[in-house]
C-alpha cells in the first residue's frame, strides 16, 4: 500500500518535472535563437557601416557631418557588441569552466 502511494507520488512528480523541463528547454531554444540572431544583426550592421565609412573616406569631398555621425554610430555599435560579448562571457563564467575553448574560437 505504502509503495503504491510512493509510486503514485513519483508518477505525479515525474509528470510535473517532465513538463517543467520541456518548457525550460523550449525557452532555452528561443533565448539561444534570439542571442544568435542579435549577433548576426550586429555583424550585418558593422559590415554596412564599415562600407559606408570607407566610401566616405574614399570620396573626394569628405562630408564631415556624415563622417562624424557614422563614427559615432560605429562607437555605439562597438559598445553594444562588447556588452553582448561581456554578457556571454559572464554567463560562461557562471557555467562549467569550459571558457578556455571560447578564447580561440
Amino acid at each position, binding site marked *: 500500500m505504502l*509503495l503504491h502511494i*510512493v*509510486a503514485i507520488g*513519483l*508518477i505525479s512528480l*515525474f509528470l510535473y*518535472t*517532465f513538463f517543467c*523541463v*520541456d518548457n*525550460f*528547454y523550449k*525557452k*532555452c*531554444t528561443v*533565448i*539561444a*535563437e534570439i*542571442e*544568435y540572431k542579435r549577433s548576426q544583426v550586429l555583424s550585418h550592421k558593422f559590415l554596412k557601416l564599415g562600407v559606408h565609412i570607407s566610401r566616405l573616406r574614399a570620396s573626394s569631398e569628405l562630408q564631415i557631418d556624415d563622417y562624424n555621425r557614422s563614427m559615432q554610430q560605429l562607437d555605439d555599435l562597438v559598445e553594444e557588441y562588447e556588452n553582448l560579448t561581456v*554578457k*556571454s562571457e559572464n*554567463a*560562461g563564467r*557562471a*557555467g*562549467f569552466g*569550459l571558457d578556455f*575553448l*571560447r578564447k*580561440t*574560437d
Partner: protein
Amino acid sequence: MALEHLDQFLTVIALLLFLVNLAAKRLNSLVLVCAVVLGIQIVSTIVRPIIINYVSPLSIEVGRILYYFGFSFICLSGVYLLGQLHAAYAVPISFVSNFYARILQFVAVLQVVRYLDRVSGNEYFQAIYSHSIPALVVATMILLTHTTILVFMNRRRKAH
C-alpha cells in the same frame, strides 16, 4: 550479446568525440551534447549495478521503483543540463541537441510506462522497451559520429 555492450560502446564513442572536439578547440552544440551523453552514460553505469546488486535483493519492489524512476529522472536531468549548458555559453541549439533532447524525453516516458506495465503484470511493453532503447543508442552513436565528420569536413572546406 552485442546489445549488452552497446551502452559501453556509446560511452567510448561519446568520450572519443568529446576529446576530438575539445582538441579542435571549438565550443559548439555538438561538444555540449557529447558532454551530456557522457555524463548520463557514466551515471547510468554507476547506478545500474548498485540497484541490481544491492537494492533489488533487499526489496524487489523498491528496486523496481528506483530503477525505472531513477533512470527516468536521469534522462530529464540530461535535458535540463543540455538547455542549461546552451544558455550558459550562449550557443545556438542545433538539430543534434534537439534530437538528443527528444530521445531523452521519450526514454523518460518509456521508463515510467514500463514500470506501470510491470506492476500491472501485463508485460505489453517488454518488446518495445528491450528493442527501442538499443535502437535509440545506435541512433545517437550514428548521429554524433556523422555530425562530427560533417563539422570537420566543413571546416576543411572553409580552410581551402
